[in-house]
């Protein structure tokens, strides 16, 4: 039974063309990243006198330590820490408030429940990009410019996760709730000891997706972090280019670009199953 596809599976030459096509695709995807990596290991003169080399040079440690510890406007290590705090803040914040509100909506009847559900539902899919000016004013009035809370809160205000947990809670068998009630469990005990453990995989899958979403934010940090020490790495790269005609410090900028993609890429590759599940779940 090793060959279930039988006659629709191409053999011989066709088989190799299939691989060839895929390899070309993989190379196309890799090429820009390979170039960025090469540029991050050579010296500035090697880049500004084109064509730059296509194989890595010997300045890896030099360029990366320059980026990490001095950078251009702020050390990249600081920007990475900011990105990490923002990404984790968005991820954890969104998961926590969504879990509790989905629990309230599914497991209780109270006046205005449907209204609340629809109010939350309305926020689905309305990205921060379309309400940037007024949201910026809110943050400015609260004195939250250049702060972590300013970076995190506006991006938590969306209902995708609530909706997801609601869908999942609805599939949890009523017998479990019944049994918990018979045993005298309070609602919160049921939540902690039964519902949360059952939601583990969903939470983990959502964690992966939200972490990437948070790490990769660009427009919002660009607006509210004017202080270089609060920049996140993804938005900080563009700030490293000099204005006007000065020459950009390409090796350091490219090292920063590589550093900006390493954490989310590691998350995707090491948690591939959860990542795929999270993607499919959050788009359902």
């Amino acid at each position, binding site marked *: 039974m090793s060959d279930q596809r039988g006659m629709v599976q191409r053999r011989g030459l066709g088989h190799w063309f299939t691989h060839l096509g895929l390899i070309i695709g993989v190379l196309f995807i890799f090429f*820009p990243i390979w170039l960025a990596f090469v540029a991050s290991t050579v010296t500035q003169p090697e880049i500004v006198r084109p*064509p730059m080399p296509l194989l890595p040079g010997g300045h890896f440690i030099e360029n990366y330590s320059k980026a990490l510890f001095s950078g251009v406007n702020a050390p990249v290590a600081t920007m990475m820490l900011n990105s990490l705090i923002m990404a984790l803040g968005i991820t954890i914040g969104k998961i926590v408030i969504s879990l509790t509100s989905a629990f309230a909506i599914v497991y209780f009847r109270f006046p205005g429940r449907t209204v609340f559900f629809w109010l939350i539902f309305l926020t689905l899919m309305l990205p921060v990009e379309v309400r940037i000016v007024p949201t910026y004013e*809110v943050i400015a009035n609260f004195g939250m410019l250049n702060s972590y809370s300013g970076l995190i809160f506006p991006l938590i*205000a969306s209902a995708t996760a*609530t909706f997801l947990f609601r869908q999942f809670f*609805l599939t949890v068998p009523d017998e479990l709730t019944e049994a918990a009630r018979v045993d005298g469990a309070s609602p919160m005990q049921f939540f902690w000891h039964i519902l949360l453990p059952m939601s583990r995989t969903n939470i983990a899958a959502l964690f992966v997706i939200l972490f990437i979403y948070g790490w990769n934010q660009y427009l919002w940090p660009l607006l509210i972090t004017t202080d270089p020490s609060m920049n996140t790495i*993804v938005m900080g790269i563009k700030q490293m280019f000099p204005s006007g005609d000065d020459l950009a410090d390409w090796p350091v900028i490219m090292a920063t670009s590589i550093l*900006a993609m390493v954490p989310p890429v590691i998350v995707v590759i090491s948690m591939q199953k959860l990542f795929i599940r999270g993607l*499919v779940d959050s788009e359902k």
Partner: protein
Amino acid sequence: MEKRVIFKGWMLPALLLLPQIVITAIFFFYPAGQAIWQSMFVPDPFGLKTQFVGLGNFEYLLGDPYYRASFVTTAIFSGLVTVVSMGVALYLAILADRLIKGSGTYRTLLIWPYAVAPAVAGVLWMFMFNTRVGVVAWYLGLLGYDWNHVLDEAEAMGLVVVASSWGRISYNFLFFLAGLQAIPRSVIEAAAIDGAKFWTRFRTIVWPLLSPTTFFLLVVNVVYAFFETFGVIHTITAGGPQQATTILVYKVYSDGFVGQDLGSSAAQSVILLLLVGILTVIQFKFIERRVHY
């Protein structure tokens, strides 16, 4: 769908809902309301007072050739991004689906660019095509082609389209491959026994069965091209040259924050809000259909 077994009380659920309600009210409903409110006012030149103009901002926008041009730019841009990223992804997914072994390996190799931020993708592509140091631009020059996306509008559009599609291929590939693998082998084998060649099988069986996936991706990719590509455009072209790559979201930003024209920017936000609303309705209509599929 409703739960039969529930808990009693209203204090606890109110407390549980509170954090989300407060955050959504402050950071979502209030700003969205403000956008609608501001869209009906024009600030005086000194920013001291505002004057009520009703739908004046909208009237002005719809008559503004720059804004209309931005609509066209957005349509071209999102159309191209959607077609390019879905086309390449479908091609790769069909190839990977033909393999008995190894499709998992290719999937791993192809999906991780999803994790690369659009803004970082923008920097990578801008580096390759940089007029001074870009490797690709240099080799194009060797072939006698003078690449300059800083001046040439079509080249600028081409570059932001490719840079925006590049990372998106992963996402589309993943969904196409899953869609293809969900098609029962027996159906395809039966057609093969009847003598149907690859293209006939693809046209008459695979493509129709794949259409729910295709339609879903169509909507999602348009939404992506509308909103999430800001980073690509800001890093590569900053909307230029001559606004050739100023898509609607970029214009909200540049009018609101660079140009400080708050009324117009708010009116543009409202129009975008409506557009997203329409796209959401389309998506949900479709999802309902898919459930009954």
